[in-house]
């Protein structure tokens, strides 16, 4: 893995919804194997950014290249090179864990001979071997998230996008999810690009973070760099967040964002 290789290059990416600009001329790049966190209050434009990078939402203007492919003109190639774990529950409760993986093995055209081996490895890797044959509706929240990550990484994507991967999980389940994500990076060099509300999570896991505010990148760098940017080493990431993102009270996201987040927390919790 060449750490200096850029796998994600975003240039002036913009998305408008009517008069509202959700993402405003976003420019940043992420290197191969990096763990990159996108922080910001609700409505800052994090989810819209992820949706554009995963080709679910076309940008109003600007461009991004993911794993070398353009999100606007090579969308199918981008889809083949990435994995995506949406914020809400994305595995099917009426199928078993094994079946949830099998359908993605088939949709991503994994060679027939390798499918069973990959699924077995993925279940083992995520600590779900004993539960592969059970219906997912019987899983705990942490198990659901781990299965979702297994499903999204079965085809060994170059970049894994995660939207609030630990929302609604208790601290123990959250640690388990992160342990597996870090293992993914170590073993396969997967680049992790994720959004989160939890500052301590960003601090302990990310190589670099970007703080978004009102659709723009308000700050970008390592946690240390951002803390130092406030003047001296006494500042915490919390101070940094308040400094760059302002008071969280003035935004808060749409009704749909908030209800989706609470519904996810309810289902996983």
């Amino acid at each position: 893995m060449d750490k200096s290789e850029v796998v994600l290059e975003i240039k002036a990416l913009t998305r408008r919804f009517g008069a509202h600009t959700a993402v405003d001329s976003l420019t940043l790049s992420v290197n191969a194997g990096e763990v990159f966190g996108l922080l910001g209050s609700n409505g800052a434009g994090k989810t819209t950014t992820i949706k554009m990078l995963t080709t679910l939402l076309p940008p109003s203007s600007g461009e991004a290249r993911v794993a070398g492919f353009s999100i606007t003109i090579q969308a199918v190639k981008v889809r083949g090179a990435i994995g995506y774990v949406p914020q809400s529950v994305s595995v099917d409760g009426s199928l078993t864990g094994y079946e949830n993986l099998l359908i993605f093995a088939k949709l991503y055209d994994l060679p027939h001979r390798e499918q069973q081996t990959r699924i077995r490895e993925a279940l083992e890797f995520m600590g779900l071997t004993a539960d592969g044959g059970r219906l997912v509706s019987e899983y705990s929240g942490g198990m659901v998230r781990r299965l979702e990550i297994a499903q999204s990484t079965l085809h060994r994507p170059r970049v894994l996008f995660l939207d609030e991967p630990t929302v609604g999980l208790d601290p123990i389940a959250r640690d388990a999810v992160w342990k597996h994500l870090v293992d993914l990076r170590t073993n396969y060099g997967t680049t992790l690009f994720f959004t989160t509300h939890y500052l301590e999570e960003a601090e302990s896991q990310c190589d670099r973070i970007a703080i978004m505010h009102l659709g723009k990148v308000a700050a970008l760098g390592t946690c240390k760099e951002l803390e130092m940017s406030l003047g001296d080493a006494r500042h915490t990431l919390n101070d940094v967040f308040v400094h760059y993102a302002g008071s969280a009270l003035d935004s808060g996201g749409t009704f749909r964002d908030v209800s989706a987040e609470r519904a996810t927390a309810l289902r996983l919790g």
Partner: protein
Amino acid sequence: MTNTFIHSLFGFVEKTFVITEFEIRKLRHDFTELITRALQPALWLLIFGQVFSRSGAMHTGNIPYLDFIAPGILAQSVLFVAIFYGINVIWERDLGIVQKFLASPTPRAALVVGKGFSAGVRTLSQAAVVYGLSLLLGVKVNWSPIALLNVLLIVILAATLFSTFSLVVACIVKTRERFMGVGQVLTMPLFFASNAIYPTAIMPGWLRTVSHLNPLTYVVDALRTCMLVGSASSFGLGYDYAVVLLCTTVLALIGARLYPQLAT
């Protein structure tokens, strides 16, 4: 160029069956849906069919009324299952399942048609019940393998047609509440402005014209031709198939274009 086309066509067909396969697997885990769905055609045939058959109010030519409506009830059951199919897609959108499928390289049309076929599989239990009751009620059923195969094919195609229509509606309205309202409004005219439970000959002229624009009319005509002994097709079986296939293709293309909007 040709190679790329064949490759994409093969990919489309293969992925369509993957989507259908997993919908069938869901039914294997919980088949109560198949049983409850089978009740509806049974009730229509036993209650509505029996009463109207006795009343003698419907003039259905040389075939008894009960024979006349058995294929109509089958078509109706297919319609009722399929037309509310879009609600599943809205449910999967409210979770994150649709988004995850759309972020995969699967062709959009395969996601749409795969769901449509699985609606077809769900209607097979209803076909079985209609055939069983027809046997008990003395309906003159054509049991030739070719006829049965045709019925099977028409039922699956019709379910694909109406569930794709439902999916298109779901992509437009996006919420469960709105979808239920629209679904109710659509079902009534589709069902009653067709030849399912009475011949179009008894309709006023304007309604007869509407019924000729209704794909369900052609589904019923095809089912009646294949399911019964001695029932001649009004439009020709080939024409029926052509209408159903054309409508399904057009709707699948529209669906494939609209489906990605569910992720936004």
